[in-house]
């Protein structure tokens, strides 16, 4: 029995698979690893699928029946990063406009910043209601993907 903790679309899921020779089991579903690395799944409803998987960083990318899933592995003891109002850059790009000031109160859905990335404009929108506690970049600054742009508390 091997137990793993995954995150899928924000939900934490515990998955326990059991191995018996070349066969793997999870409740009524059965699976085996094929010589080319694909996984043959036989679901308890009788459907058979051939899945592809690849790990990038801590994320398993899985293709199954025309769908692609991103499933994050949760390291044992790692802390949950909840939505604390920090807003990060979705893409590397340039800050075109800062629409708010430090100390200003904002509503959920309010546009805070305009970024230019891949020659397109993107609006950074507040996901929560609160006060702008810090602004980390000014107009014209280059930003890397994932960096915090502003803080809302």
């Amino acid at each position, binding site marked *: 029995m*091997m137990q*793993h903790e*995954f995150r*899928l679309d924000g939900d934490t*899921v515990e*998955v*326990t*698979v059991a*191995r018996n020779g070349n066969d*793997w089991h*999870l409740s009524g*579903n059965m*699976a085996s*690893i094929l010589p*080319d*690395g694909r*996984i043959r*799944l036989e*679901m308890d*409803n009788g*459907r058979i*699928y051939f*899945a*592809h*998987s*690849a*790990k*990038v*960083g801590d994320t*398993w*990318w*899985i*293709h*199954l*029946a*025309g*769908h*692609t*899933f*991103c*499933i994050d*592995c949760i390291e044992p003891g790692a802390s949950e990063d909840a939505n604390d109002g920090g807003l990060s850059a*979705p*893409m*590397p*790009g340039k800050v*075109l406009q800062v629409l708010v000031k430090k100390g200003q109160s904002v509503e959920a859905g309010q546009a805070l910043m*305009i970024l*230019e*990335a*891949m*020659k*397109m*404009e*993107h609006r950074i929108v507040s996901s929560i209601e609160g006060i702008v506690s810090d602004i980390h970049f000014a107009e014209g600054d280059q930003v890397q*993907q994932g960096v915090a742009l502003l803080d809302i508390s």
Partner: protein
Amino acid sequence: MVSTVLVANRGEIACRILRACSESGLSSIAIYADNDADSLFVELATKSVILEGESIAETYLNQKQIIKIAKQYGADAIHPGFGFLSERADFAQAVIDSGLKWIGPSPRAIKMMGDKMTARTTMKAAGVPVIPGEEIEQEDEHEALLAIKNASHRVGFPLLLKASSGGGGKGMRVVNSPDELEDAVNSARREAIAAFGDGRVYVERLLDGAKHVEIQILADQQGRIIHLGERECSVQRRHQKVFEEAPCPTMTEELRERMGRAAILAAQAVDYEGAGTVEFLLASNGEFFFLEMNTRIQVEHPVTEMITGVDIVREQLRIASGEPMSCKDLIIRGHSIEVRLYAEDASNNFLPAIGPLTVFSPPVGPGVRLDTGVRQGDQVTPNYDPMLAKLVVWAPSRKEALQRMRRALDDFIVLGTTTNIRFLRELCDQEDVVNGSTYTTLIDRVWPDGWQPTIPDSLIEGALMVAGISESSGMHRNSNAVIQSEDGPVSPFTTISRRFP
């Protein structure tokens, strides 16, 4: 005569042109920026030359450097592809002035069609119907805003603001009511200045429920101009086409004849040479209006090739060589659909995505064509357009083509980078797409709050099980090792461990 073609482009379209050169028995030269050194197109040329410089302006847009390389390595013609310098009249002129053949229309034709205002006036004069709208001549920010406000009352809402020298949806804004106008003008102008160095815009009526239908034309140096029928490209996100087909499902023989004649008229008005596309909006009452003419090969040209059997890029090469085009009387056969695969998150406002193409496994089978510039192991970077591939299918009927596209999309596996594959797949099931009653605002109307995938619970369970098995069996050991060397050369064996428990 043309014997060596320099391809002044990169990625998918460079691959398409370089392969056509090879099939035509021509030598070819690829030019590439440093960050493209490992890209597929670089391998496909007879000779590949690195461009000096870092930015796009210093490399793929560097006219002097490109012409210098062409002369130095013995090219006698330049094919610009699409995007980059393809619609720059000054570049076409510089190519001609340096004694090389420009594979495309004359600089004059590019200039007249490239400036949307001039194009409108030229088309009106040639008797081609244009959309009700007004050109804004004022360049000053405040004067332009005032002029746009005045024009908006005459044109009416909803209206469309378009950058005069724009394309690809950049600098374009839909304005539904007067109170949205000022913000939209400012942001459209800003985007237009950043992208094209020209903030001029024009205002036109937004035709509700209209189809985007375009006519492919070919004109040779012997004076023959033909049209190759239409393509419908109504389904767009952010004003960029994502689903294209030929023929247009609602086309009649009589309407094709009239639109084809208007397109030929447009080409004649500018003494056109080579391949070009005249875009129209087709209103629900059967009226059609000139949108613009693209004086270059287009992204969606394959669907026309599939139903006519004409290799448009080879015809471009033939025409540039001074030979007459090879196509005889055309017969439209069957139906073809193309979808554009983008590295983007369709569930998050189509935000561009980056990452490794750890697995890139396209579908195969009868009637399936893939035009791409990437292969497994490549990285998707923010440096260039996030289009990964064009998946094209052909079948005897539209219904079968759609069935084939669904199957092909289900079989298309890309892991490591978010793509719009699932979005395209669900698009194929939309009632309006199935019926062929597509229109330009379809995506916004079908998914007013954005698209989210519909996933059966049993598949989620299956995916979690696959993750559990993959993690338990240590299948990730090899793939992780590759990811760590992000800047280094990427091994083609990135995917899955070949060792098993």
